[in-house]
């Protein structure tokens, strides 16, 4: 066994760096080409008391920083009630970068507008891959 120990050790010494350096690492992993796409997700609810749907979402920028958002949704259920609008900004891995919320009382049926005046924390749009827009009927805005 002692006669085999040295060749075995040599073999392992050679094999270890070969395995280490054989890890595949594409160039894009270390040198990203930027951000060629963005995704908007607009919510439509489907419960009897809340069948509202988002029709549009628009981000406001100051330079590259996202400072606000305007959301238009169709209020389908009659009456006056509170709607909370939440815009979530996510990165390419699905991690939440920032969130903005607005809540208000809306009357009647038709296209309504929610205005979000700030996102916390402040983020650059160049880091945002996905914009999720959710509206939800709530009992109150408190």
């Amino acid at each position, binding site marked *: 066994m002692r006669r085999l120990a*040295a060749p075995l050790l*040599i073999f392992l010494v*050679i094999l270890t760096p070969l395995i280490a350096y054989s890890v595949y690492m594409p160039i894009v992993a270390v040198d*990203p080409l930027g951000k060629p796409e963005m995704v908007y997700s*607009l919510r*439509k609810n489907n419960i009897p008391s809340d069948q509202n749907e988002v029709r*549009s979402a628009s*981000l406001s920028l100051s330079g590259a920083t996202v400072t606000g958002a305007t959301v238009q949704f169709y209020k389908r259920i009659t009456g006056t009630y509170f709607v909370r609008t939440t815009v979530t900004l996510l990165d390419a891995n699905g991690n939440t970068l920032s969130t903005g919320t607005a809540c208000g009382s809306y009357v009647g049926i038709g296209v309504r507008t929610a205005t979000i005046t700030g996102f916390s924390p402040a983020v650059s749009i160049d880091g945002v891959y996905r914009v999720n827009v959710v509206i939800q009927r709530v009992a109150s805005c408190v």
Partner: protein
Amino acid sequence: MFNMRYLLPLILALLVSSTAYAVAVTLASNNIDQLGRGEGNVVHYYVRVLSASVTVNNNAFNNQITGGSVTVASTVSGTYTVTITVSTSAGTRTYTTTVSLSSTPTTISFTITPLSYTAPGVTITVRADPV
């Protein structure tokens, strides 16, 4: 634990493997460098989609999306193929156009074959690839 009889081959093996690796890295680096210089149009650009909207055929709950618009900008000016993909649980529609983009936002209106606007909503993917 080991005497020189075993240590010498070990050192030689390390030397040979290190040299081989250095040569391989050098050759690979040359290839990467050549690729970088050759691909002159590969640039780092960031697509900024400032807004997305859908147009529907009516206000009934079981309505359909017939089109919409997106407002797009890019950090690098140029001509891009913009692909807009609209998806709901009922299916997917794609609209492609070629436009000139810059840091000033451009609005692109699109029409699609009617697609049911189903819960839980619609996903609009905007992709811009340099022409």
